[in-house]
């Protein structure tokens, strides 16, 4: 068999290392041509593929603790690629790629019904409420590998799919069909100054994500590492973004498990 095995690209974020600095957000904005507006303080109206949440342990001073939780698209696998958002899109503008496990979004096909936003429990999908406008000259910094989105469509993190394509093209030119771990990395992973983000193929035991998470691929990729958890595990969305922490309260704040399975 010459056909390469399917990939399951995923990410594990070490919440004990993440400092909440926002470098991942900015690197993502720069890589993916995310627009900005005069007032972006209302995060529910603002487009940012990566958002850093601030979690609190809810205890009073001086026992208060905080943790930062970066949230890219979770690239849910659901059952056999039946991710919450992909199945609901009426215009086939989003797709679960069985070869990579990446949930894509076709901006030119989306007509802005926002059903996928209602379907996503992670608020990953965001709507272009406004026309994207760059101040004169700043559009020069736009990345030609990623198309600029128009007003009225939904967008979200693509695990920097353009980087995957670029890496794959380069590999093909060199006569290879497989990418090495470091050849394809997302912008946030690469930028993270704390080294808190690890990205790779969950199907590949040689990759660090696999080694950290130890995914139970028969059960939707449930982590076998007890320090690793996923957001809303019990919904059965089977996200491919995992979180690593030693702190119990962080795990509890990140996932509402009434009964542990």
């Amino acid at each position: 068999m010459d056909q390469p095995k399917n990939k399951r690209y995923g990410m594990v974020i070490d919440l004990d290392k993440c400092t909440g600095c926002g470098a991942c957000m900015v690197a993502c904005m720069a890589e993916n041509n995310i627009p900005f507006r005069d007032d972006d303080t209302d995060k529910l109206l603002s487009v940012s593929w990566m958002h850093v949440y601030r979690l609190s342990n809810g205890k009073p001073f001086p026992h208060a603790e905080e943790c930062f939780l970066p949230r890219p698209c979770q690239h849910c696998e659901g059952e056999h690629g039946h991710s919450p958002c992909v199945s609901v899109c009426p215009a086939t503008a989003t797709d679960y790629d069985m070869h990579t496990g990446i949930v894509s979004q076709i901006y030119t096909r989306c007509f802005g019904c926002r059903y996928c936003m209602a379907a996503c429990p992670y608020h990953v999908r965001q709507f272009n409420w406004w026309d994207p406008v760059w101040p004169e000259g700043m559009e020069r910094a736009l990345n030609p590998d990623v198309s600029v989105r128009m007003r009225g469509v939904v967008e979200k993190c693509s695990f920097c799919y353009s980087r995957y394509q670029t890496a794959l093209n380069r590999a093909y030119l060199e006569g290879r069909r497989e990418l090495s771990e470091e050849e394809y990395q997302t912008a946030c992973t690469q930028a993270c100054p704390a080294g808190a983000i690890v990205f790779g193929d969950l199907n590949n035991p040689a990759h660090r994500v696999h080694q950290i998470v130890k995914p139970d691929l028969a059960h939707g990729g449930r982590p076998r590492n007890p320090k690793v958890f996923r957001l809303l595990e019990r919904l059965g969305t089977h996200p491919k973004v995992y979180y690593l922490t030693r702190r119990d309260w962080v795990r509890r704040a990140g996932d509402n498990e009434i009964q542990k399975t």
Partner: protein
Amino acid sequence: MKIDRRSFLAFVFGGAAGTALSPLPWKLTDDISIWTQNWPWTPVPPKGETTYVASTCTLCPGGCGIRVRRVEDRVVKIEGRSDHPVNRGGICPLGAAGVQLLYSPWRVRQPLKKVDGRFVPVSWDQAIGEIAGELRELREAGAPEAVAWIAETDRGTTAELIRRFLTVYGSPNFIRTPSAQDAWETALYLTQGQRATAGFDLERVSFLLSLGSGLLEGWGAPPFVFRACGALQDRNGRFVQLEPRLSKTAAKAHQWLPLQPGTEGTLAFGLIHVILKEGLERKPFVATRTAGLEDLKRNALREAFAPEAVAQATGLEAKTVVELARAFAAAERPLAVCGRGAGRVPGGLQETLAVHFLNALVGSVNVEGGVIAVPEPEYIRWPEPEMDAVASQGMQTPRVDGAGSERYPLARYLLNRLPEALLQGEKPAVRILFVSGGNPLYSLPDSERTAKAFSRIPLLVSLSPFLDETAAAAHYVLPAPTYLERWEDVPGAAGFPKPLIGLVRPVVAPRLATMPTGDVVIRLAQRLGGTLRAAFPWESHEVCLRQTLAAAWEPLRKNGFVLDESFRPQPFETASRKFEFGNAELKPLAEFRPHPAPGDPGVFKLTLVPYDSLRLTAALGTPPFLVKALESEILWKNDIRVEIHPQTARDLGLADGADARLITPRGEARVKLYLTEGIRPGLVGMARGLGRGAHDRYLAGKGASANRLLAAVEDSSGFEAGWGIRARLERA
């Protein structure tokens, strides 16, 4: 033809049916949808060949290596260099947003001259000619010392060119932008006799004690410090943060001890007290490599630093202090650091000394995992310039900021004292001021007074890429290129424990009619002629740089940085060749007293403590991506949100999100409240970096500036030691 109803209906229905059956509606529908996919006002970035250029980031003193992605001649992204010793591929949010500074439409496009309060564009020739004329006039009047120059740093060829210019012109008033390094460098000089910057070998530490340092908020080179703190966790080391609010650093530390603000020095002495009393100091190191321990004992073993007294002052428990001291002393590689927040304020010298003494007691000075004196680079060896009589006389006059004077013998630069000096006398002591870094009109405390002082200067020249607050107040703005458009040598990286030289290189051709600061200096010297022209034999800054770096140029150009891998800490250079806890110069500093927050506690019941955020810049303009990434807990619409404890809010009868007026003895600001359990009751936490008067529409006019509310606090060495101010909140 008569049109009756029947034929009319037939025409309408037939026409409609005919059109519907033709391809026209389908074609139109399709065209319209294609049009929505390519709206002409939505930009389409042109494709092209992608190349990468290695350079160095200068947006903060961190000195990270960057990899700039270009598509044809456009810069599209800045990433961290994975082979760079400082950041190893990581990059901070500001560094990642650097492209937006390059392409900012709010950059200064050509030299500007203020005429009747408004800027008019002038040519470079005219601007340089007119400024040179003023310089010549002042020099001929015999007052060359009335020229001063505020620079970002005192390292590298640009800084040396400025310093050389001032020297040959006849002014001692070269001023570096203040930072926590000021106090650290002085502490190293006093105790170790070394003229060096403080490096911190954070990657090998096993117990990191931070006295208010925002290690994860911009202190040092962020990616280096971040990675080290992460590695500390992997090694199961310990990380304790002493800070009055639950900053991002405190949130990541293993232990957050919310001490009263301003008592960090007290706590350091308290720890020294316990260590000395219980004999926990690292005996071999203290016995063989230090001297003057008696002086420290005399000072630290006073009742004022006994655990109970320290607990009283710091708001911590006595047993916590004792436990902390024991654990710190017992750790394999303990290290204490200080320099509040991002380290942009020097802080008191005694406080830094206390922390340094603490390190010396546990043997963490000039060793692996400790504070390391990194020698200042010595590659700039130019022939001594020839000076005329005016210059020699001018150089004899005391510095305008008082640094090095009898009163402030230890300080080298005291920018914080400049406003005070400017306000003295009939005529201001500075007649011509150049500012090529630091944006003092925004970043110095007590902004109103600073602005008043600076407004007395007859000629203020700003050399900035942006129309920042200082540039806006200047008489001339000479636009400098951004770090992506020029050559620059960057010696050292803040807090990095090894000698390093990085190279900034032009990634794109200068976009606008800018001129590097070094070239402005050379042009001015050429215009002034005489000894000045003779002192600058280079035709441009770039040529000067190549010649200066000589043999180092090629490897630097090729690799982007030169790291001295073989570097080992140097021996102490004090008279005793040991680390000195006490000596003649230290003696006057022995009595440590914390600096109280200015203001009457009776009128101002609360205390305002400013804090730094990596998503906001201090002096530079914050680029739009960072403003976008700013938390809504800091900025909401156009209002800054200040942190207060819910109990404090209840006492004031104010709710979360409420509008309030924050009043200090220096000014008042409109704020919104953010209630959090992560701050000591009685404090008001306020982010630095907002309330910008100038800059782009994404930043300007948002929030309020903490510096406007703060007062300057001078410690006995002259350093800016302020950490907060008394304040009160009133319902708006």
